[in-house]
């Protein structure tokens, strides 16, 4: 008997391709009676970037959490890292020290603690005989952030950071961890990123990818989960596609097409949702927003017709993201809002008033703002509808279940069970439930903040169809997003923001993904030029 934890080159399996740094085989994972991973086998080569794709709930994050030692797989599952067979469940500390670093799906940062605390939590290998020297750590981290072109004070708490900065903190932390690890020092190591991009602008995605390519050059390997096919095509060497807990395909990126990948993910051919912009929309103004300001937003006016879908976008921090929050009264700002024939002063708006005025709002932070994971799907889905679910003797639980079941059916929520806690659903399925909840209110105005963030390609089309249905019934929709493709797909009009104000309005034929991107960046560089010029003259 040899200790399986002892690595020597001699007991490496001779049949194994030396380039395989990681080999997971026969991985099975159950949550209660439900098998979520069914015999998954996956290999990662030295120096490659592997895309891990699949619909929401197909098991990607679960597989990654098995690797991180967070989930305990069923007996018989095997993980072999750098030729060494590891004991399961994996020891989370050891796997990190061996050179696997993670950026988990929701970043795994504690918002109420400082950046430095979050960076240090897994950094317990270094011997610190006199304890942590905060001054030295701070300097080191500052330097590290600067290396990535970031100006983040390590003593700031994470909740004061913009979402993009948070994403970078998690990414930099993982990279740092990798460098510290045994394998990392040898220039190898594995970086695992579970959907790191939803928070990032196109520009930041580019920067991240540049970084990943640099990492790859050193000999390290990367696993990245994303729902964005363009990203997959641009960065990965190979793609692994999961469906229903199985690994269904392993493809070399260069040899496949976009459509082929999409079809593999969904399991059959899917057509891209396309909004029919030609159809005659109800005329007349449904919603008017006047002099809206607050946070970074300095001024915004717009009128939306019934059934119109309007997008707001821009670079991070340009103020567009505040729009839905201010209109809904979730954040306090100035301005006025007219819905139908009622006008409200937004400085006194509250979410309660907004709901009463038939405004719906799906916030961007699903876990903290949109749904309650410990309550059932039914309790989440029917919360707004309770007044319609009353019988003679108060709330009817039967009616609530029936209402939820029809919502589940309508939006194809999986698993289709009203009684399970919302938190056990995959992110995309949670999103469907929660958007479904708001749509069931038949709102006059639907506000959305990144409505499809973390949602897979197929589910995304379903959500778009649902939004289209609402629009057809006369709901005006206002959507804030940095996903230009999505905006181009679903919107009738898009406002592009810069420095707190709308600077461009795109519609009709001019409304394309590239046009939006150009509008965002063009204005930005213009402004930058003016700024430098001003500085030179003073």
């Amino acid at each position, binding site marked *: 008997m040899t200790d399986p934890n002892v690595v020597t080159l001699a007991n490496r399996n001779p049949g194994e391709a030396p380039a395989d740094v990681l080999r997971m085989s026969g991985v099975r994972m159950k949550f209660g009676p439900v098998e979520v991973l069914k015999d998954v086998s996956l290999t990662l080569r030295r120096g490659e970037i592997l895309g891990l794709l699949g619909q929401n709930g197909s098991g990607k994050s679960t597989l990654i959490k098995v690797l991180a030692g967070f989930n305990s797989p069923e007996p018989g599952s095997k993980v072999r890292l750098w030729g060494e067979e590891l004991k399961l469940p994996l020891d989370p500390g050891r796997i990190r020290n061996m050179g696997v670093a993670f950026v988990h799906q929701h970043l795994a940062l504690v918002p109420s603690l400082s950046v430095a605390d979050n960076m240090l939590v897994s950094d317990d290998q270094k011997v610190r005989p006199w304890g942590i020297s905060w001054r030295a750590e701070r300097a080191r981290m500052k330097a590290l952030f600067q290396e990535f072109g970031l100006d983040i004070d390590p003593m700031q708490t994470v909740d004061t950071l913009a979402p993009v900065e948070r994403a970078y903190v998690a990414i930099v932390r993982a990279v740092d961890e990798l460098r510290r690890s045994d394998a990392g020092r040898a220039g190898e190591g594995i970086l695992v990123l579970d959907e790191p991009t939803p928070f990032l602008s196109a520009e930041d995605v580019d920067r991240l990818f540049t970084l990943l390519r640099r990492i790859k050059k050193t000999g390290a390997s990367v696993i990245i989960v994303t729902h964005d096919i363009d990203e997959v095509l641009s960065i990965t060497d190979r793609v692994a596609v999961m469906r229903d807990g199985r690994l269904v395909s392993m493809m070399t990126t260069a040899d496949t097409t976009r459509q082929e990948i999409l079809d593999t993910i969904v399991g059959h051919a899917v057509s891209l949702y396309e909004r029919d912009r030609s159809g005659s929309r109800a005329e007349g103004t449904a919603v008017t927003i006047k002099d809206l300001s607050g946070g970074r937003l300095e001024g915004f006016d717009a009128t939306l017709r019934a059934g119109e879908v309007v997008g707001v976008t821009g670079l991070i921090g340009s103020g567009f993201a505040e729009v839905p929050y201010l209109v809904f009264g979730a954040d306090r700002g100035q301005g006025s809002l007219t819905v139908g024939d009622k006008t409200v002063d937004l400085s006194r708006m509250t979410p309660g008033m907004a709901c009463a005025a038939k405004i719906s709002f799906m916030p961007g932070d699903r876990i*903290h703002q949109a749904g309650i994971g410990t309550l059932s799907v039914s309790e989440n889905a029917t919360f*707004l509808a309770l007044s319609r679910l009353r019988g003679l003797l108060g709330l009817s639980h039967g009616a609530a279940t029936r209402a939820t079941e029809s919502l589940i059916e309508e939006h194809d929520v999986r698993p289709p069970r009203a009684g399970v806690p919302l938190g056990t659903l995959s992110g995309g399925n949670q999103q469907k439930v929660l958007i479904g909840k708001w749509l069931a209110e038949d709102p006059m105005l639907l506000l959305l903040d990144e409505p499809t963030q973390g949602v897979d390609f197929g589910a995304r089309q379903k959500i778009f169809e649902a939004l289209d249905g609402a629009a057809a019934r006369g709901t005006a929709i206002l959507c804030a997003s940095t996903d230009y493709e999505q905006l181009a797909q679903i919107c009738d009009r898009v406002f592009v923001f810069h420095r707190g104000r709308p600077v461009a309005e795109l519609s009709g034929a001019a409304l394309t993904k590239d046009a939006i991107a150009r509008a965002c960046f063009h204005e930005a560089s213009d402004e930058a030029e003016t700024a430098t010029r001003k500085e030179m003259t003073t």
Partner: protein
Amino acid sequence: MSATDTPSRPLASLDIKKEVERYALVLGWIFLIAIFGLLLPDTFLTWRTFSSMLGSQAVLVVLALGILIPLTSGDFDLSAASILVFGSMFLAVSNVQWGWPVGLSVVAVVLIGLIAGLVNAFFVLFFRIHSLIVTLGIGTFLNGMTLWISNSRTVSGVSMELVEIVVIQRLFGVPLAFYYGLLVALVMWYMLEFTISGRKLLFVGRGREVARLNGVPVERVRAIAFGISGGLSGLAGVLYAGMTGSADPTSGLQLLLPAFAAAFLGATAIYPGRFNPIGTLVGVYFLITGITGLTMLGADAYVQSLFYGGALVVAVSLSQLVRQRQPQHFA
């Protein structure tokens, strides 16, 4: 999706498990009754013993139901027992020494409780302080007030009218006090399970920001929860004074921890994983049955503590085993 159709199959078996989970504590209770019935067939299994057990716990029941409301909305009310004691003392002092009609005193006490609850709410919500420290502080302050208005002495001679309708008059041999507790539990059960307000309370407790963005006036809901807790603590104080016709400045404070124990124990029954009034009722009577049986057996005082502590931990552990050790999410 094959992953998704599996769960529907073992539904029937799951449901039986769910039922066991819901009624485990009730079964435990029946088991205790059976044991003591065997050991003390003549004295324990009498209606008088049961009516006495049922009647004597009304104060604890109402107090536990009171704190259950802020627990559901995610706040601790450690001042509840202090409100109870202050309330019972205020009742006694106003009725006996100032000559207020007892009805007026009762109304005043419930109002005082409500106001004390709202004071808690003010500090928690306006200053955004953790409920634990606010209610600890306000509770201690009220303890001082109790000592002050009573000169640290027991005040007896509370109007017999109150005593009559609390503990002397009976229905099916059980003092009315029991039915007050039962009534509060039933009303609360209805409110929590079958009204929108109840659902809002739960949402606020589980996810404040989510509740806010769903149009729930979170602060108002939390304030009302503190108010109800205070009011019910006041009512418990009324019952406390009504049980004994008197008020003493300290002994009621001992009810605080048992009330929390009952609320948490109750959260393992009927609606497992959720604070709930019927479960709380079962929790209170489960524990008192054990204590009463032991006392009737003449067990030493320390055995009662061993039972109380041990039963609490064992009961909850067993119920967790039945639930396959799913973590408890309360707030």
